[in-house]
């Protein structure tokens, strides 16, 4: 099994109240959050008061009235995703945002079909199912989350999903969602609180996600 992901993705999602129609590539370019040439070459799917979707070669943008998402599948641009998200809501600082997700996805290639199954069996052992299921069991999806501590809401809530990859043959897909939310009083301050939390947590959250994936692969490779 390879330690390095074949495909990676970084995605910043905000939940709040947005005005999708203003988010056009030209608007981002006018605010110098993307380049002019990039803006001209963008693939606009839709710009509408309810939804805006467009793509550039390095990122995808999607927003509805209550959801804002910017993602990239090219590691060199992950910092640009952060810059775009932070820059946007430093300009639109009165936009009410109540929650944020720093999401990472990894598609890891296994060396063989056997290794692929073995990895699934490590996470979801077959033994409890022996005699219950008629045929051999296989892992379809597993979702694990860290216990949320209400005393430390700033720590966020981490959820890891592992399932077979649909993009890499005999690949394992990891999806990690690091979720942060703020209370109603903080929400009244617009986007400042959540943006400041994003600035504080971005690096830490990314490192945490990468460590989780490499640690579980390490554990698998070192199994006796």
């Amino acid at each position, binding site marked *: 099994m390879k330690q390095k992901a*074949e495909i990676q993705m970084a995605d910043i999602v905000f939940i709040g109240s947005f005005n999708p129609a203003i988010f056009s590539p030209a608007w981002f370019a006018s605010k110098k959050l993307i380049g002019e040439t990039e803006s001209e070459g963008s693939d606009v*799917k839709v710009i509408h008061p309810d939804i805006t979707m467009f793509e550039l070669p390095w990122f995808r943008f999607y927003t509805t009235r209550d959801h804002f998402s910017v993602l990239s599948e090219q*590691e*060199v641009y992950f910092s640009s995703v952060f810059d775009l998200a932070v*820059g946007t809501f430093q300009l639109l600082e009165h936009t009410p945002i109540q929650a944020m997700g720093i999401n990472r996805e990894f598609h890891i290639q296994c060396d063989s079909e056997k290794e692929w199954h073995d990895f699934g069996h490590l996470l979801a052992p077959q033994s409890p199912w022996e005699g219950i299921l008629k045929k051999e069991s296989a892992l379809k999806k597993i979702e694990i989350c860290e216990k949320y501590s209400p005393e430390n809401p700033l720590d966020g809530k981490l959820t890891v999903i592992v399932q077979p990859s649909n993009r890499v043959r005999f690949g394992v897909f990891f999806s990690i969602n690091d979720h942060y939310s703020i209370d109603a009083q903080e929400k009244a301050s617009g986007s400042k609180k959540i943006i400041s939390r994003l600035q504080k947590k971005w690096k830490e959250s990314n490192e945490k996600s990468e460590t989780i994936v490499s640690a579980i692969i390490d554990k698998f490779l070192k199994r006796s």
Partner: protein
Amino acid sequence: MNTALAETYSNFSRVETNETFLREDEKPIEISEQRIRSFLNESKESSTQPHEEAKEKNDSNILPFPLKDDQPLIALAPKMQIQHRTFNSSIKWEGYVIKVYNDSFLARITNLSSKYPDEEVEIEKEAISKDDLPLVKAGSVFNWHIGYETEHGTKKQSSIIRFRRLPVWTKSDIKIAEALEKELNNFLYF
């Protein structure tokens, strides 16, 4: 089957999961699959009737579905395609510009993939995208990754330099900074 009916069928999955629909008066109602099926049968017969007339005929708990081909119930959002271009970084540096020359710039770079000491390098401006050229100034931060770009299954080695578009300074940020500077000056020269 006309477009409106096709769209309505696509809503069956929502009904099966017992999701609740909201009417205009915001009173939650549950619609069973059986009721929708009976509604659809009625609609097929009355699909030529004007919308309002058909609405009156229906059960009060049924949402008023448009019945003409040119009045779709919902507009489906376009699907985002899977990106066929991916970039896998092998070596990653983060750097900042020290000095800008006519055709190149001097930068200090830190290897993020291993613990090598920082290096000073001269990078030609030709390696920078047209959009990023105005960002090449002393102090600007950039990412430099060397790796493999895969597009439609074809792999090629590639090097990308991307300048950070670091968050803008807002007027309130500048005001806060100026106030802090004043406070610090007062403290130091008191």
